[in-house]
């Protein structure tokens, strides 16, 4: 029977239902988790014997760069990233290649092999939404969605400058529907616009040229819009001065702006059963905290500023972060932060590309290699792990590498093992430049995350944070039948034996998606359909009309016609709108 399965006798870790390693059976019928299967149903169901193994909900990556113009630019400018990683076609799967920026097919298979079933693209420039959706549509197996880049958008900057939050909200709502996107991403607020004139902004109250809005106004305004509309995900913030020594201060000040903002998630969906409140309770989602946490004044005296930010977050409840870990080796840095890429070019001399996305934002791509022997890189490694270990409440942290910025997502097993095993951290310290130890707190941390914590960081919390917990990140009745079975026996877990952990995380024993077994020990065995989620936001017709008059008036500055701007549903595979702000 399609989508009907029983995962038996595994040690289940399901934090949204406060299940911590109980031996349980998980039943899935028609792709959804159910309380039980009848004898007849059981007879026809596939059965996975998970005894002695760890069972978790399918992995959810809330911040990855996997589709769209910049990812594709990364692919085409890096032939050297592809020639050694070739995936041969099988009767079931497509061929593919690429290490840090794999082809869409390989990406889907690689995520599924590690037990991930849901991945959100973190930066979609509206003009590139069609392209992004085309790539997401071609990515097999993964349920996807994406955040629209809106921090340097002409219309929003004008509305925010005029203090017209209602029009700004109408614009955002319309853009979400128009480009089939899911949340708001804000990159280097107000700064990327200045990059069009070779400049940047460096403090929260520095107004940018022409529009005269400040980063503070942008962050505050977008967050107000976000909560006014009741979007699923908090404002996804990439703070100013990213990657500059001393940037931790502006990061902390940026977080303070949204202290006290009341999160309001207004989604009309059917919620899966969970024990704890699955709706989001944060007003800001700070992306890749590591890159925003440098202390010091130059690269010569820089050190980790994570402790200070972690202390702030420990005392506040409005912030959730993802770590942006750097697990060493090859990476491809790609971001909407054009000036940050130019800084990295000046640092490395590597080939790079930069682009201006008309009235909407910017972008840049540069290959990068993180070396253990390099003092700054070794420090970054330590800082990334500090982000996950110094913040006490795991419900405030999400594990990422900002793939492929800090490293490709295929390095997640390393990061997962570092946060679970002090011995593995010690081993890596011994190979690192001494800066890693001297200039961070990591060496003094003996915290080792449990499998329960790990399930929070890689499943429950990303799902809750981005408003997907109504169907992802839990194994409660009504949730999607996405399950990962790792070959780890929690009763015999020995964190000193980190090789075993690495091996288990690299290739999940089973990955189940919508009740179908999709991967066994890393091999893809079936290709069920995937979905694309977007926010279908309701605003009053009158307000939308007023706003659209402005948009049409200014559209003459775009290089394409208004009629060609929207992304039609046919660009999405199984488009799944989530109704937002519905008047009941």
């Amino acid at each position, binding site marked *: 029977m399609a989508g009907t399965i029983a995962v038996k006798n595994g040690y289940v870790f399901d934090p949204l239902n406060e299940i911590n390693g109980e031996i349980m059976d998980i039943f899935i019928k028609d792709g959804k988790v159910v309380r039980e299967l009848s004898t007849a149903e059981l007879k026809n169901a596939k059965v996975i014997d998970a005894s002695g193994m760890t069972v978790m909900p399918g992995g959810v990556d809330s911040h990855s760069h996997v589709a769209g113009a910049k990812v594709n630019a990364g692919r085409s*400018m*890096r*032939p*050297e*990233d592809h*020639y050694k990683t070739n995936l041969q076609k099988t009767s079931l799967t497509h061929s593919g290649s690429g290490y840090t920026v794999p082809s869409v097919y390989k990406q889907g298979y690689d995520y599924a092999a590690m037990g991930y079933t849901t991945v959100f693209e973190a930066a979609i420039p509206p003009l590139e939404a069609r392209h992004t959706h085309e790539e997401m549509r071609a990515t097999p197996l993964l349920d996807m969605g994406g955040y629209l880049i809106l921090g340097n958008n002409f219309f929003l900057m004008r509305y925010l400058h005029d203090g017209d939050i209602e029009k700004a909200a109408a614009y955002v709502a319309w853009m979400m529907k128009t480009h089939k996107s899911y949340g708001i991403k804000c990159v280097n607020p107000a700064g990327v616009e200045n990059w069009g004139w070779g400049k940047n902004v460096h403090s929260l109250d520095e107004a940018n040229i022409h529009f005269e809005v400040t980063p503070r106004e942008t962050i505050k305004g977008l967050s107000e819009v976000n909560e006014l509309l009741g979007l699923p995900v908090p404002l996804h913030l990439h703070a100013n001065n990213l990657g500059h020594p001393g940037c931790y201060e502006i990061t902390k000040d940026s977080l303070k702006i949204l202290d006290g903002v009341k999160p309001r998630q207004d989604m009309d969906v059917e919620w899966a059963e969970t024990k704890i409140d699955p709706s989001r309770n944060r007003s800001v989602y700070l992306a890749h905290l590591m890159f925003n946490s440098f202390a010091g004044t130059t690269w010569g005296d820089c050190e980790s500023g994570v402790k200070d930010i972690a202390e702030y977050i420990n005392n506040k409840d409005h912030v959730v972060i993802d770590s942006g870990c750097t697990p060493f080796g090859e990476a491809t840095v790609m971001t909407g932060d054009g000036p940050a890429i130019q800084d990295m070019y000046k640092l490395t*001399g*590597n*080939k790079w590309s930069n682009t201006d996305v008309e009235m909407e934002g910017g972008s840049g791509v540069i290959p990068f290699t993180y070396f253990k022997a390099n003092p700054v890189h070794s420090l970054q490694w330590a800082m990334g792990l500090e982000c996950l270990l110094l913040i006490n409440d795991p419900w405030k942290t999400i594990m990422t590498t900002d793939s492929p910025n800090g490293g490709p997502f295929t390095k997640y097993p390393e990061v997962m093992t570092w946060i679970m095993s002090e011995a593995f951290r010690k081993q890596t310290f011994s190979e690192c430049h001494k800066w890693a130890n001297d200039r961070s707190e990591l060496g003094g941390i003996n915290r080792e995350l449990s499998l329960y914590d790990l399930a929070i960081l890689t499943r429950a919390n990303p799902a809750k944070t981005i408003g997907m917990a109504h169907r992802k990140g839990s194994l409660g009745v009504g949730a999607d039948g996405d399950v990962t079975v790792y070959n780890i026996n929690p009763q015999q877990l020995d964190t000193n034996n980190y090789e075993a952990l690495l091996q288990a995380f690299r290739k999940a024993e089973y990955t189940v998606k919508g009740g179908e077994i999709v991967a066994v020990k890393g091999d893809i065995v079936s290709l069920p359909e995937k979905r694309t989620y977007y926010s279908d936001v309701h605003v009053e017709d009158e307000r939308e009309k007023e706003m659209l008059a402005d948009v049409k008036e200014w559209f003459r500055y775009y290089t394409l016609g208004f009629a060609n701007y929207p992304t039609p549903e046919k660009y999405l595979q199984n488009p799944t709108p989530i109704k937002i702000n519905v008047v009941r």
Partner: protein
Amino acid sequence: MTEGVLINENEVESKLEAVIKPGSFTGENAGEMAEVILIPKKAIDIKLEADVITPDSFAGKSAEEIGKLSVWQGPKTYPLSEFFEVTGNGGSSAAETLIRIKGDAMRIKRIGESMSAGKIEIEGSAGMHVGTGMKGGELVVYGDADSWAGMEMTGGLLHIKGNAGDHVGCAYRGKWHGMKGGRIVIEGSARHQLGGGMDGGEILVEGDVKSFCGIRQNGGLIFVKGSALRGVGAEMAGGTIVIGGKIERFSPGFEFVSMENSITSGEVELIGEFKKFTGDYAISKRAKGALYVVADTNPEL
């Protein structure tokens, strides 16, 4: 016969006298080696991807087993025996295996790719990517070698008795680091971008090179007895290039340092009068590349 390499046998005009220590250009004399002979059966139309032809994959296999190893031709795979008559068995290890290709292999790519030990002798010309990523052992090409010979090599000896094509010891397209170790000897000439992105090891060319020899070089030694066309050492940040003949068009980012009477680099000692330059300052202010040219042949520099 060799459409891949288009070099005319130029007269090598070099006033250089190279004193090279005995034995340094030949591989270690291995002990008893088991010999596998590959005799081409037929003309090959679409070029083969034959990265299986290495002592590492032949070791421990019988002639029959070797014949069953598969090679790619276009979108299809075939057993090696489709194209070669295989005689002789592999040795017990790669180091004890000698592969002799009796005939022309210009349409066979990737021979000896990533080999770590043992020896391959090609009694004819070799196709693209011969000795790519070679880690050890010895590979001798009696004829010419097509482009990309010894790409990203890390060890061993690649000895080309004829001419070589473009990108000898170079980095893969888009990559910044080429050959890291080992030695490439070319008795004839080579074409463009020899040693691009080279980090270590040595390349010795008896004949001439064309343009951009040692482009983006970071380390190692390139020694060309003949002349070079242009762009020698462009964007180099480290390493050494020696040109024995004339440089047609000298790179603008280099600065004259001194006159030198001999150069010693590893086992190679060169005697003669040289002009020493450093650079390439066109990109970096801190470039440490050394470029030596023979004084006599380059009076205008």
